[in-house]
């Protein structure tokens, strides 16, 4: 289990990480979501030891992380980094060799991964000759080639077509199943929703929500229900203790407490046949939007902050 506790980091006067703490469980895919400049990349760089935290700890299974421990991490930086003129296969083999695999084993690992990620035919092309999607796959291969014990991936799915996303998800899930903690950031909330076991939401440098995906959805669920009836649902508007969110003939989306909802269902059954009724849980995107919207009032004094380019957070020193 990878654990962050009380991590703070400032760049100049700006506090970009404020008491960041969360865990990445073994065997689970943990999605890390947040807006531009929320602190995702900074957090990941601190986990990797690429950047130092001002305070706070990062531990793996309770032990503080040193350089030796971090050697066993697999990292995919946000800016895709490989030697542009080097052949994909050689590049992967080189990275594996730096991690201690001998020439033969390193080459075998590279071939294996390229095959797995559908890049085998491009193995002898220079990285710069690959399409962006394929460069992305090569980058993922680079993070995996030494069989890491922890995986930290910054936006691994950006630029991938849906098929490629599935391939990569398959590879990551396989690693997670082997007991590897996998942390990846993404702004594709539907992807995170689909494949993450746990979700960590960060906004303005603070962790806003963290936990198993379903638990989060329950936690953020408003007492909201939807009903689909054969008749017109217009009467619902005059029903006490009910606030209608959306309405369209026989369909209605409304907020009400559990008892009122049951009453509504019974009344509806008296009117006409009901084909569907149930509580509505928010999607991750909705939760995320809620969280970020909550931020807005407190942000007004630093409104210019949000208009800054996203990569400012990676600019530590002047």
């Amino acid at each position, binding site marked *: 289990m990878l654990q962050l506790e009380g991590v703070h980091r400032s760049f100049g006067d700006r506090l970009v990480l404020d008491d960041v703490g969360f865990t990445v469980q073994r065997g689970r895919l943990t999605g890390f979501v947040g807006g531009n400049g929320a602190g995702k990349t900074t957090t990941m760089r601190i986990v990797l030891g690429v950047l130092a935290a001002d305070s706070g700890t990062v531990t793996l299974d309770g032990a503080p992380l040193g350089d030796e421990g971090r050697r066993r991490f697999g990292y995919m930086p946000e800016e895709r980094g490989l030697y542009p003129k080097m052949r994909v296969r050689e590049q992967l083999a080189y990275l594996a060799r730096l*991690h201690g695999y*001998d020439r033969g084993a390193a080459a075998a690992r590279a071939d294996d991964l390229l095959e797995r990620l559908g890049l085998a035919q491009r193995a002898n092309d220079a990285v710069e000759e690959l399409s962006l999607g394929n460069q992305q796959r090569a980058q993922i291969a680079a993070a995996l080639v030494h069989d890491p*014990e922890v995986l930290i991936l910054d936006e691994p799915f950006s630029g991938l077509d849906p098929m490629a996303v599935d391939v990569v998800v398959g590879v990551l899930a396989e690693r997670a199943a*082997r007991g590897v903690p996998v942390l990846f950031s993404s702004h594709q909330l539907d992807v995170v929703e689909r494949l993450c076991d746990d979700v960590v939401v960060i906004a303005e440098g603070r962790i806003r929500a963290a936990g198993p995906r379903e638990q989060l959805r329950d936690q953020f669920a408003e007492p909201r229900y939807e009903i689909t009836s054969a008749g017109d649902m217009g009467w619902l508007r005059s029903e006490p203790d009910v606030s209608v969110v959306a309405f369209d003939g026989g369909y209605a989306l409304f907020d009400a407490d559990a008892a009122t909802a049951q009453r509504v269902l019974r009344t509806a059954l008296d009117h006409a046949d009901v084909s569907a009724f149930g509580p509505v849980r928010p999607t991750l995107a909705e939760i995320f939007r809620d969280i970020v919207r909550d931020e807005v009032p407190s942000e007004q004094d630093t409104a210019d902050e949000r208009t800054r380019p996203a990569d400012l957070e*990676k600019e530590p020193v002047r």
Partner: protein
Amino acid sequence: MSTTTDRPATPSQAATVLMVAEREILAQVRSKSFLISSGVLLLAVLIAIILGGVLPGQDDAGTKVAVVAASAEVVDGVDALDPVDAADAEAARELVRSEEVEAAILPDDDPDNVLGFTVVGRTSAPSDVLGALSVTPPVELLEEPETPFEVRYLVSLGFGLIFMMSAMTFGSTIAQNTVQEKQSRIVEILLSAVPARGLLAGKILGNSVLALGQTAAIAAVAVVGMVVTGQDELLGMLSMPVVWFVLFFLVGFVLLAAIFASSASLVSRIEDTGPVLTPVMMVTMAPYFLVVFFNDNPLVLTIASYVPFSAPVAMPVRLFLGEAAWWEPLLALGVLAVSTVLVIALGARIYERSLLRMGGRVRVTEALRSA
């Protein structure tokens, strides 16, 4: 559940350095631009040597003079003159008029002329011919002759040029690779496997091998060229200085390489390399200009031959000119080696600390101060 069991051991520092060096070398050797520029450089050296051998050779062919049967023996055995047979005196004069020959040598029966022949010129007395025919007393020199200016100049130029070109080529390669690794952030992936010092050492080693290899190739081409064009004498004078040059080059290049790498590590984008590399470039070019402009100024040369940056060029030049005592290159090499060790220590510190700092340019003082 974890996969620790089949995890290989961390490679030793030395093994890591070798792997990094191997990658640097392979990347360079496979690049077309490197192969082409090396080929052009070697060809240029070869052409320079051949021209150097052939051009003076044409002068040695001798001045053409027209002779008739009766005067042919006068020219016989005079190397500087190249006889052209003419049918008679009038034909010989015609050759002079048409400027096909410098002069004509004709028999003269006049009893006052003890030599028994006259030299016919076109508009003025042909001094080459007169000089070649005149009798000079034997000469005894009390001191070794000074190296002629041209040779002195050319040899200085040669050492200076080779050093500058090699150092610039491979120095900028190191700088470029360093920034490129930073810019592409592959450095973040590399550093999870390799310590920064290992990366730096591998880069320096790889490029030093390449630089030395190229310089050795140039030296080989030069030696073969000199032997083929019969410039053995110059070769003999050059052999010791060349050996020293290679020694100095090796250490001197490592010094520059460390500066190139650590300077480049201060910036994050290729576009920003200009300002940080300017001082290094100047230091790299300095020895070339020093020896070219001051190769006849023993004081400047002596100082330059001890200053670490210019020693690799200035000391071999002084050795070639025979102006350095036997212990001087040893001392200069020692000074160079010590400064190289110091610079590497300092450079590694800067490199280590600025490698992961992205964004703006890192100030040297900052890199040295911060932990």
